[in-house]
């Protein structure tokens, strides 16, 4: 496969006043790969996600997304267009479900644009035409598929806000997948999960990668998750990329160890505990 990579980030910089949150970061992410972005707290990982998904306009740099749907320059698109047209879906570090709506409704809302078209921008739906009813039935089928994958079928009709924490995390991933994305950005999906739930998450993410063949970007602090499922790892520290490679390379990289554990004894800065 010599085609262009799914996502190419070039010289991305994001400044907030004097603070450089993301500093000249370049990397690529491939379809069918899980690319993990790791780094200590405040390294700029979530800011990078917010740039990618249109919540921030980057100060400089380029983000190119290429798949069968076309080529998109993400830095020039409005936030909701990135999700609707460029097919980038994301989850949030603090879960953002529609808590007052049912689990199933969360997944149906994710298919909004498709259903809007099917409902003739509400007119056909208002008069109850068959075309909309079929589209809705298809949407429910897709929702059911993902509910089965994340094991929430039995709880489809309760409020999303009343689910336990781990289920909410999985529901957010299912909701992102219902938009049929080409690139899925997950912001700390394993945060707050217990060991069994983390295992389920690993299985779910590898299933998404292998069966649906999309690109996955993963911010994660749980090194167990990162090392066992990611195909490539990008390491950020103070906004800069300090390492990139397959898990084995990154694990042995002295810069990475220094960023996580502090300076080694005898180095020029002296031991920062």
């Amino acid at each position, binding site marked *: 496969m010599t085609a262009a990579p799914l996502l190419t980030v070039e010289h991305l910089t994001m400044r907030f006043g004097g603070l450089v949150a993301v500093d000249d970061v370049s990397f690529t992410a491939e379809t069918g790969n899980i690319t993990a972005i790791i780094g200590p707290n405040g390294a700029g990982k979530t800011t990078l996600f917010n740039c990618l998904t249109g919540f921030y306009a980057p100060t400089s740099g380029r983000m190119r997304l290429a798949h069968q749907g076309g080529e998109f320059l993400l830095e020039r698109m409005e*936030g*909701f267009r990135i*999700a609707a047209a460029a097919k980038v879906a994301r989850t949030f570090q603090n879960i953002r479900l529609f808590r007052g709506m*049912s689990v*199933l*409704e969360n997944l*149906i809302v994710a298919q909004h644009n498709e259903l809007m078209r099917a409902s003739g921008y509400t007119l056909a739906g208002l008069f109850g035409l068959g075309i909309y009813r079929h589209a809705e039935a298809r949407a*429910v089928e897709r929702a059911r598929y993902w509910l089965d994958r994340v094991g929430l079928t039995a709880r489809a009709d309760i409020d999303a806000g009343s689910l336990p924490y781990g289920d909410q995390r999985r529901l957010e991933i299912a909701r992102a997948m219902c938009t049929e994305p080409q690139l899925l950005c997950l912001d700390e999906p394993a945060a707050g999960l217990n060991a069994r739930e983390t295992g389920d998450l690993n299985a779910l993410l590898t299933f998404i990668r292998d069966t649906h063949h999309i690109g996955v970007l993963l911010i994660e602090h749980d090194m167990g998750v990162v090392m066992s499922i990611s195909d490539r790892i990008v390491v950020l520290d103070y906004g800069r990329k300090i390492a990139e490679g397959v898990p084995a390379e990154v694990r042995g990289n002295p810069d990475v160890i220094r960023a996580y554990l502090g300076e080694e004894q005898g180095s020029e800065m002296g031991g920062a505990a």
Partner: protein
Amino acid sequence: MAARSSASVPANDILRQSALAGLLVFGLAVALVGVRIQDGSAAALAPLHFRFDDVLTAAAAAALGRFGVLLLRAGLHAPVAAGGAAVALAVALAQWFAPAHPLRLALLFDVAMPNWLIVAFAAFLALCAAWRLRHAPVAVMQGADARESVMDHLGAQVQRIARFAGPLILLLAIALPLMPFADRRLIDIAILVVTYIMLGWGLNIVVGLAGLLDLGYVAFYAVGAYSYALLAQNFGLNFWICLPFAGIMAAFAGVLLGFPVLRLRGDYLAIVTLGFGEMIRIILLNWYQFTGGPNGLTGIPRPSFFGLPFTASPPEGTHSFHTFVSLIWPIEFSPNHRVVFLYYVILALAMITNLFTLRIRRLPIGRAWEALREDEIACRSLGINPTNTKLTAFAIGAGFGGFAGAFFATRQGFVSPESFSFIESAVILAIVVLGGMGSQIGVVLAAVLLIGLPEFFRDLHQYRMIAFGAAMVGIMLWRPAGLLAHREPTLRLSTQGGPP
């Protein structure tokens, strides 16, 4: 507050809190109730009239009431049931049988109303205590959570019942003008209530579904009313042609308001919409060449029954409603015909609003509104265009306000800016909030409570607004989500077929 338990509270603590409640009421009432400035001829004799006996009565009543509530919380159900019943009975008897007895006048209020309030509260307390005596385990489940779950359950029940009762209520509403007791006054009140139900349902789209707090809804009502009035006066168009125009104009006004406030939420949005409502009113007040200014517009044409006017003596060779009907079934002219017709018009408009809302809740746009209310950022991450979604909510909600406004203009035959003051917006919002945001049947209940009851209880005159205020405060304390707030999912997996 929620941590109060049914475990025993120390006795001196109960006494202290009761005394504090009495003291608090004493402090609040001593100036407001205790001293009254006389006017007229009485002022010459004594400029101030003191009513400290009433202040003491109020303080004692508050202390006693608080004492009862605390005893109830401490689990002493039997004494509270007995004591509450005794107090209620004693005050009621004194009020009923000895209105001028000196002992009663010394111990109780001179006016009847507060005494009846004491009776009502004591009786309520006694009933609570008696109920808990019989259903002891429920008393353990306490605090705000229990009340929420009970009320939510109630809301769910009412909504389930409403599915069957709704058509029944509609039938009753249709039959209302045909009832023997339906006089002119009753139908006028009914028209008023249904108008507010329609406005409540319209605002429910903006506030209840899309979660955009709109304090200036009356502006769209005004735009609709003036659109109809001006179109009818300047171009001679009839009501039925103007009605859609009035709705469209109001919808445009909604978009106009929507654009600048797209980024605002919550308090900030409320302030801007409040300002917008006032702007429309002030424009109507000052642009007198166009809107007639403070004099308003008069002589707005009344609606006709498919071209047949409601007049006593139509011009030679034409028919009016009663002469036309008389061709089939002889009837006399009656001014009530028009009122009844107006009632059916607003009932139909309100039902259209209701059916539209029920339908659109189940369509993608309706779900997107609700999703936007829940979390706008998540909506954007799912590719929902927040701009379009918000603007359609504003436009559609405003459009229904415009329809109601056109109806208002044709009913009154006269519009002036006075009818569109902020208090109207507040009442409509109160209907939506009181009923339970997003609850259609809740709006009906709240409109009947807020509009219908005060109209019926005009005899209470100055206590009317106090009762209104007290009811609102009570709702905010005990049921902030509204009386019948309960949300049913718009679709269920279990009813979609497939494996169970």
